[in-house]
């Protein structure tokens, strides 16, 4: 595992940038339960960083800490070289961190296009009065945002359902629309909470391809959670492995695969 802040080169020869986010000794408790115990790791610019672990390992809690939904009792989140003050989830989003949810949180009543356009909200700057008059600045801004949204819709191959209300879509397509909405924000970090959960093999392959393409085409930094080991190993540049709230491994997929603690956690060695 190469150190640190100035970046590294992956096994397949891609250049990865410096540290964009760093978790420092994060501990999260719910009452007496410690969901996350003193975990530290970093995310580099342009990499695909996975957090894996069996069910209940605290992966989703970790993602919720990054996106501001949970506030850790101890530890700090460093973002772009500075400790991040305590923030509400919407403020985190405004800072350029977009996310998807394990059990899909889309705007069911809106069309696919409208959903993707909400991803542009953080980029809309014109005031209420300018928008009421509509001509000029507000109109230009709307057109620009619309262009970004359409580009992403094309990229994720959901043109055919642009105008369809989201509530009518299949599970797999909903997941893709959610990805599109998060991407529309042009995030500095994209957080994906179990992007393949509940999908069939074909859908998983599609989603994997999209994640790789997004990273390749837009250079988006991606942090994702998954408990399907196979998928993650093919996708990610570096992997954090969690079990019972603790970090038991951190490194390239190859390193992690040969880590005895990780093998134990996945094969189910008895905990003492």
């Amino acid at each position, binding site marked *: 595992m190469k150190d640190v802040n100035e970046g590294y080169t992956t096994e397949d020869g891609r250049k990865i940038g410096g540290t964009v986010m760093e978790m420092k000794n994060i501990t999260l408790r719910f009452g007496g339960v410690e969901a996350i115990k003193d975990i530290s790791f970093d995310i580099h610019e342009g990499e695909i960083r996975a957090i894996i672990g069996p069910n209940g390992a605290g992966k989703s809690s970790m993602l919720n800490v990054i*996106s501001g*939904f949970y506030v850790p009792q101890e530890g700090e989140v460093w973002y772009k070289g500075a400790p991040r003050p305590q923030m*509400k*989830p*919407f*403020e985190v*989003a*405004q800072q350029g961190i*977009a*996310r998807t*949810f394990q059990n899909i*949180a*889309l*705007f*069911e*009543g*809106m069309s696919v296009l*409208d959903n993707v*356009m*909400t*991803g542009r*909200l*953080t980029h*809309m700057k*014109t005031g*209420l009065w300018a*928008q*009421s008059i*509509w001509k000029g600045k507000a109109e230009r801004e*709307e057109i620009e945002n619309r262009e970004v949204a359409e580009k992403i819709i094309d990229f994720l191959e959901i043109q055919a359902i642009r105008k369809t209300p989201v509530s009518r879509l299949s599970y797999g397509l909903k997941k893709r629309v959610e990805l599109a*909405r*998060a991407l529309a*924000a042009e995030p500095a970090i994209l957080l994906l909470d179990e992007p393949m959960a509940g999908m069939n093999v074909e859908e998983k392959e599609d989603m994997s391809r999209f994640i790789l393409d997004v990273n390749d085409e837009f250079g988006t930094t991606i942090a994702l959670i998954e408990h399907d080991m196979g998928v993650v190993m093919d996708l990610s540049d570096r992997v954090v492995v969690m079990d019972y709230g603790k970090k038991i491994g951190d490194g390239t997929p190859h390193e992690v695969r040969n880590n005895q603690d990780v093998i134990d956690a996945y094969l189910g060695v008895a905990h003492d």
Partner: protein
Amino acid sequence: MPDQFLFAIEVILNGLMAGVLYALVALGFVLIYKASGIFNYAQGVMALFAALTLVGIMEGQVPFSHLINATFGTDVHHFGWHVPALLAIFLTMLVMIALAWCVQRFVFRFLVGQEPIILFMATIGLAYFLEGVGDLMWGSDIKTLDVGLPQGGSFWIEEMTVGLGGDGFYGFFIDKLDIIATVIAVLLVAGLVAFAQYTKQGRAMRAVADDHQAALSVGVSLNFIWILVWSLAGFVALVAGIMWGAKSGVQFSLSLIALKALPVLMLGGFTSIPGAIVGGLIIGVGEKLFEFLIGAPFLGGATENWFAYMLALLFLVFRPQGLFGEKIIERV
């Protein structure tokens, strides 16, 4: 054409006009319910409070004058000036925005994620609180509200239509104020729909209405949107308050019109803006026509008081989500 038939048409027209006013109040309910899931019992009182404040500002009344006089032994009632209607409406709107902020800051911020029934109880408390404050601020006497809207029957319409019937028919009697109210309601609804569809804040508002978590994840502040929505509801309340106040004077029974909005919502559905309008019109026409055709001749009259509730009851039995509401499907 037979006079009886023409008279029925006039009844329908007047019913439509009355329905517009019901719809205006119902609209305020729908706005808040959609965006925050709160059934705002205080919407009617907000209309009353807006109307009281408007009259108070226009007349240059000293707010809390009774309280001040009782405490300090002074005798102040009026500033001695009159504020022009447009400026007064603007100032009243500022008061309603301040109210929206207070409601969010001091009440609902602490109740995020609570059961709907608790939120509902909070709005009942809010209704009584606001009624008390309104009384304390501006006094409880009935006031006339004249913002310069034309009032009284339209002679032009009467003259134009008098030829339709026989000797016993004197033309349609339609209050000019009702026509104005209709036009304003149409503009208001068009404005609200455009706002929700095409502006950043409108989009954020729809996002919050749809899914709180998802809205947070795209960078929308729930707090800001809720203040915005309460302000919008305050604005709708102000418009409704002006119309009702101009029609029948600003009095505390105004807050009871909120109850008429209930059957309107059951008909239209709690989540639909067009539903509030159509529901209002159906109730307005329905109760006038029922009174005219059945109530007055056969039931001894005064059916307008209960017709709307009976209709709502029927809807609850056969179509609980209302005409336009989202269908209630619970997955098990």
